[in-house]
């Protein structure tokens, strides 16, 4: 049974509509990640679920109960803010126990809860410090601890890691994944970082311009993107896009453009045959291109190396393919020279095609 359901959720600021009818169902104890570029309405959606923003249209259901007119405190949720939003005048223990103290729980119970959560997050030593006396990572943990101590039914996170440096972010991401296994609760997590989304989410919801583009498991979204936006947004380095035409010959179909001609696997050929347009955008992820000098003509592309970025074991090559840019990955020890033309075999499953007009995937 769905735990949280958004039905045609609309948000307007004055006459300016920022969310255009969001429909979303989250299963019980699911970790849902809302991801998308800046300004796409992720925070707005989350804040509406929390009750910090009013709902302009549509409805939010928690356990099948409409909640859009309830106060935040009546919705049984805890939230971690991007800037942590700790109470500066209270020490860590007081911060974490604030909600429980408001509920007038017995002191013994409160101390116990705070103790358990502090232990879990490694905060025991800091319980008597004020937020101002903590490092960024510790503050982040306190914010997390405050939400956990609440013991609410639903956890909301609004870019909780975006204020940390790269190394700490990676570390906290791992801790979050661990915490996620220990705490079985509904979690909704907002981020613009696709790696966070892929590693943490049971379900990813990709948003863009106030619309949901696609939702599904990380694998679904990565392997079968619904449109060009989702395809380009997830994955790093991002998917390469090439302008192309589809040609049907008697026995086989080809997708070709300047500097390349690839034979289409049968299922793709069938999909294109049933679609009206022959003008497509071809999408291939760098991970689906393998350096292979002896590959067949129709199963490979020839790329001229323009720039090589060394990033350790792998190098990212920026190449030219008939005037369009393509990025590929290559083992750093492969001897190559700038300006050289290399042959890369294309993984058959790695061929994605999108209608050039509507940008919808052809599949």
């Amino acid at each position: 049974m769905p735990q949280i359901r958004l039905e045609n959720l609309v948000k307007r600021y004055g006459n300016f509509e920022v969310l255009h009818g969001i429909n979303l169902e989250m299963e019980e104890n699911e970790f849902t990640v809302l991801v998308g570029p800046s300004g796409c309405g992720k925070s707005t959606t989350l804040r509406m679920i929390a009750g910090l923003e009013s709902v302009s249209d549509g409805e939010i259901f928690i356990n099948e109960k409409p909640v859009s007119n309830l106060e935040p405190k009546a919705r049984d949720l805890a939230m971690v803010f991007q800037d942590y939003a700790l109470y500066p005048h209270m020490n860590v223990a007081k911060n974490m126990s604030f909600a429980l103290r408001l509920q007038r729980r017995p002191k013994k119970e409160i101390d116990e809860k705070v103790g358990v959560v502090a232990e879990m997050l490694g905060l025991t030593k800091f319980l008597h410090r004020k937020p101002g006396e903590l490092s960024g990572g510790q503050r982040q943990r306190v914010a997390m601890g405050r939400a956990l101590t609440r013991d609410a039914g639903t956890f909301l996170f609004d870019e909780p890691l975006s204020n940390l440096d790269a190394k700490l972010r990676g570390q906290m991401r791992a801790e979050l994944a661990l915490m996620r296994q220990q705490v079985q609760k509904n979690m909704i997590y907002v981020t613009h970082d696709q790696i966070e989304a892929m590693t943490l989410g049971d379900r990813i919801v990709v948003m863009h311009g106030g619309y949901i583009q696609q939702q599904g498991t990380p694998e679904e979204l990565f392997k079968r993107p619904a449109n060009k936006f989702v395809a380009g947004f997830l994955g790093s380095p991002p998917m390469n896009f090439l302008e192309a035409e589809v040609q049907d010959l008697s026995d086989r179909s080809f997708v070709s453009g300047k500097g390349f001609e690839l034979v289409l696997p049968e299922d793709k050929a069938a999909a294109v045959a049933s679609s009206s347009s022959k003008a497509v955008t071809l999408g291939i992820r760098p991970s689906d291109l393998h350096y292979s000098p002896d590959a067949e003509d129709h199963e490979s592309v020839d790329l001229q190396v323009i720039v090589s970025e060394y990033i350790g074991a792998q190098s990212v090559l920026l190449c030219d393919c008939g005037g369009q840019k393509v990025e590929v990955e290559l083992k750093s020890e492969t001897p190559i020279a700038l300006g050289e033309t290399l042959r890369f075999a294309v993984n058959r499953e790695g061929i994605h095609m999108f209608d050039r007009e509507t940008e919808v995937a052809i599949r």
Partner: protein
Amino acid sequence: MSVAIKANRLTPYMFLAPAGVILVFALLYPIGYMVYASFLDWSPSQRIGQAEFIGFRNYVNLWGDEAFRESFWVTIRFAAIVVTLEMFLGVGLALLLDRNLKGMAVLRTVFILPMMIAPIVVGLMWRYMYHPTVGIFNRTLKSMGFEGVPWLSDSTWSFIAIVIADVWQWTPFIFILALAAMQSLPRSALEAAEIDGASEWQKILLIKLPLMMPVLIVTLLLRLIDAFKVLEVILVLTNGGPGLSTEILALRIFRTAQEFQELGEAAAMSNLLLMLLMALTIGMFAYNRVQEARVARQRAAAEKDDD
């Protein structure tokens, strides 16, 4: 140590020197003059050099002076009452008006108008409003069938009258400072409190007021110092009367110098007032220091736990 380094060390003091000179002439000289004058038996017809040096006799005289003691208590009572009222009203208004409704900006501007009016004008205005027959208060009371109130001619009522006028004029001061403090509060902390289940009252008592406290304490101190020195409005409204019921210290000092021509005694009173205010300031300062020391001690203890 090389000459260059020595010169480097002296540089900041050279830059401070002009400010230091101004400080000596503009601040220390007049205060020193006043302190010196408080040891003299000095009338306005004499030059300061001709006045007789009488040591602490001015201060001893003050001690025995019934009227001085009375006006000292009037001042304390006045300051305590008006500042308490103003703090409650000012902070309360700020809490009420801290929201983004249409027309709020205009309303806020209207609220701070009283503060911009010259004190003499405020005094004249209120004197007219307190007038026993044509004043707006008594006319309103009478039109509603009540007795008029002897606003300025009864000793209790005249004290109330000056308190009302002062509260009217200075509540806006606390209001704007409190409002500014409130609007710089971290928004997300308040939202977090809302999600944690705090009601409006709990948000005010547990989050807003504690976070505003440093600003409120400074505001309180500023107002208190000002309230001890209040003069013009009361001078115009009651001139200290009836009897000594509204004769605050500043007025007493003014009259001692002006009417009784006792410059030395007036200087002694000024000194007492100055010392009172200094005690207040230093007390507040010490309070801050104690707080800081306590925090530092806690921090040190916490850090020791870390290892």
